[in-house]
């Protein structure tokens, strides 16, 4: 039996009420490439963070190279031979590659000799592994692929025998990905053990020897790659899901009960409407075509996304976070300007030369509930009544000339708090003092009360308690029932399935697929989310 590079046994980790790792066992053979797959919240990042010393497990043990170790911080992890290449690089842009390697690991205060020594070791290492990095160039001038190689070398030069790679291809172009995989295979030949955290099933199949699938904090599958396939992995990743969606909405007592809907029973997306349907398919409320957005490093975070929002529907955007969902909402709401693409809202067209702005979006009755509640949706030091008018503070009812009509704002806030059950009912309380759920309800109240036609909602129930979750979902359905459209981005697949009429799956900045809710089965969704089908 091959030696075991890493063995984690019975790992439990709780963050308050969240049981992030439930009795996780992981065995990694030395010199192999081991993949760890799962959606957001599956617990894979937590597990690796424990291995690398960022967290300490509540229970369980870790063995590296057959020896039990206690890893209390990243220094001890590195001493045990465990290195990590993070998804968001930890490099100083203005310093050279060599200096970045030296940072934090300076052997003596005589930098000159330390640099020379390190350079010698690095040149040898680069020869052995084939990973080339220009040592004297400032990091900000290096392309992304080269920066990543730098991160890998940084871990290796500190003696890492086990290398953890967190979503390594998230920022790479297809060419760079190929180059990386070649390099990783080379590392495996050298005897380095690789742990690959990812949600991209194709990569797992092509690169790994063994795979562990995690879901909801537990290991649900562990297998040799040769004995499994993408479909098995996809299903395991997503699990047995019940697509509630429309069926649930039709039977539950929403705020309007089983009230009348202005739409025909077949739904607006059934253009081949059933006999007797006389309504014409209504025009779209929002239409986006070919949206492309590049991040500061030049990586396309949105790579040609098109979508349509029609009245009376909730469109859910599923996918592992980091695949362009955030950027999509930002572009549609006017916070970011795309490099290419067109947007049409209520008949008004926008192109990158003159893109929609948040203010104009509000005028066109597009509301946005931002993903980043704390820094975008609210101003934390502001009182609740001040946050409750954020974005609408220039409206007539809230002021005349230069004067702010505080009483009107407070009254509006009190009304919002009543309608949406925000506690405590104190408009003067600082926004930061409300619990996450109540903050979210306040933000939702603010956006819904403005009477929008389109609601762009990001992570509506992140960090929100159960009771508030139901309430928020009911509100979104109510908006849909009244003829509005909702675009919901959520990393919780359950949530998407619970409220959507149709689901768009995003992967690598593109729409991997679109399914009406009835067709949302585990296998199909898992494949789309894992990037298996383009």
């Amino acid at each position, binding site marked *: 039996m091959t030696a075991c590079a890493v063995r984690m046994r019975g790992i439990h980790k709780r963050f308050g009420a969240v049981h992030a790792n439930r009795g996780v066992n992981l065995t990694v053979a030395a010199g192999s490439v081991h993949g760890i797959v799962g959606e957001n919240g599956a617990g894979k990042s937590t597990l690796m963070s424990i291995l690398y010393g960022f967290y300490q497990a509540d229970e369980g043990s870790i063995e590296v190279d057959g020896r039990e170790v206690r890893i209390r911080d990243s220094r001890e992890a590195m001493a045990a031979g465990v290195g990590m290449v993070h998804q968001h690089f930890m490099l100083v842009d203005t310093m050279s590659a060599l200096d970045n390697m030296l940072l934090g690991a300076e052997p003596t205060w005589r930098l000159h000799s330390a640099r020379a020594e390190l350079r010698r070791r690095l040149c040898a290492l680069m020869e052995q592994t084939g990973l080339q990095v220009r040592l004297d160039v400032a990091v900000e001038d290096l392309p992304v692929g080269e920066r990543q190689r730098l991160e890998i070398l940084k871990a290796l030069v500190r003696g890492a025998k086990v290398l953890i790679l967190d979503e390594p291809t998230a920022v790479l172009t297809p060419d760079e990905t190929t180059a990386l995989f070649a390099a990783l295979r080379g590392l495996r030949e050298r005897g380095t053990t690789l742990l690959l955290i990812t949600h991209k099933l194709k990569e797992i199949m092509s690169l790994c020897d063994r795979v562990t699938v995690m879901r909801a904090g537990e290991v649900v599958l562990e297998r040799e790659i040769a004995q499994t396939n993408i479909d098995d992995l996809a299903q395991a990743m997503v699990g047995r899901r019940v697509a509630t969606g429309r069926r649930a909405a039709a039977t539950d007592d929403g705020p309007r009960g089983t009230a009348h809907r202005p739409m025909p029973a077949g739904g607006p997306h059934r253009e081949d409407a059933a006999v007797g349907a006389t309504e014409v398919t209504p025009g779209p409320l929002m239409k986006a075509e070919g949206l492309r957005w590049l991040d500061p490093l030049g990586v396309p975070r949105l790579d040609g996304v098109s979508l349509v929002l029609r009245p009376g529907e909730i469109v859910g955007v599923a996918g592992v976070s980091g695949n362009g969902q955030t950027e999509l909402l930002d572009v549609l709401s006017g916070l970011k300007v795309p490099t290419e693409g067109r947007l049409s809202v209520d008949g008004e067209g926008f192109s990158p030369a003159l893109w929609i702005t948040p203010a104009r979006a509000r005028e066109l009755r597009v509301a946005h509930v931002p993903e980043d509640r704390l820094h975008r*949706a609210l101003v934390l030091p502001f009182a609740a009544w001040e946050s409750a008018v954020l974005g609408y503070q220039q409206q007539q009812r809230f002021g005349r000339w230069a004067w702010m009509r505080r009483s009107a704002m407070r009254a509006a806030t009190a009304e919002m708090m009543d309608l949406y059950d925000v506690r405590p009912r104190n408009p003067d309380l600082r926004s930061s003092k409300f619990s996450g759920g109540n903050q979210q309800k306040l933000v939702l109240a603010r956006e819904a009360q403005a009477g929008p036609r389109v609601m762009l909602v990001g992570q509506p129930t992140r960090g929100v308690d159960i009771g508030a979750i139901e309430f928020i979902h009911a509100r979104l359905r109510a908006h849909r029932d009244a003829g509005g459209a909702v675009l919901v981005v959520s990393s919780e697949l359950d949530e998407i399935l619970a409220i959507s009429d149709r689901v768009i799956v995003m992967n690598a900045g593109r729409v991997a697929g679109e399914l009406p809710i009835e067709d949302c089965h585990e296998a199909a969704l898992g494949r789309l989310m894992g990037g298996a089908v383009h």
Partner: protein
Amino acid sequence: MSTNASLPRWMDLLLLPLMNLALAMAVASAVVWAIGLEPGPVIGLLFKGAWGSASGISYTLYYTTTFVFTGLAVAVAFHAGLFNIGGEGQAAMGGLGTGLVALAALQWMPGLPATILVPAMVLGAMLFGAAWAAVPGALQAWRGSHVVITTIMFNFLAAALMGYLLVEVLKEPGTMDLQSRAFEPAARMPGVHECLLALGVDWPATPLNLTAVLAVLAIAAAWWLLWKSRSGYDLRASGHAPAAAQYAGIDPRRQVMLAMLVSGAFAGLVGVNEIAGVHQRLLPDFVAGAGFAGIAVSLIGRNHPLGIALASLLFGTLYQGGAELAFEVPGFSRDMVFTLQGLIVLFAGALSTVLVGPLARLHRRWSSGAAQGVWP
């Protein structure tokens, strides 16, 4: 306004500054003792010099007026997330504006009444101060040049400009002194002692003039702007949370410009106090460090107009009391006052949050103790 969320409001705004002040005084007393003087009588004399006589009070209030303006200048910019440390230069330019209006009137339209001249001078002060802050503001807004760097540079530029103008352009003909011609009698802010005399009250002649009333109005105006006006909302949102402000449709560049313009205008009013109120001619270096003192005033005043009013009174007290001490006590130089000011800035500014931790713990123990019925 920067607040410490772990402390209840009253502790944060009242107790903490007082304790920081007490610490500063304690250290200052130690210094006084170290140079061979008795701290008690010295401190007593300081306060007596500032508040013990009509003349002393007047001087104190006259200094306070200047500090209010420079303090508000820093505070308004701070609420927008900018650290405007160009108050020195903006105040100097404000004085230039005041003087140019008066000299222009003297040259081309002599005989205008005070009711036109004085408001014109005030406007000139505000405009020039605002204009001087506008360039750093524009550079920050459109080019990202950090306001801290540019405003400091502009302080030097202001001094150089004033020097040049006074030597080459505005110099009073017939003298070697670095000053402009004297203004007309109507082009001055009346002194408080004159007004009181007109009301039948006997009051010693001091530099204290009606600009002090402007200072009170400025406090009210700043408070209204920041918390009652729509602009103030946008400004504060921009300063607290730029991402949220962008989301709310607030243009960050506009906010930066607005903040710097208002800030500069406030600083410019120092010109009215000094040039129109005291000297009635243009002089170099009449700001004399008040711009920098304004930074300390704003810090101690927690960037709130009321706090600034109180902090300005404190600094005015120190200036006047220090002058008296330097006069009365042998071995005590004016530099001691600067030492004390420096200590206050150190404890109330840089070290202001040192006490927050212990105070918060104390408060938690008190409140939990009270809840458990341990404390009465």
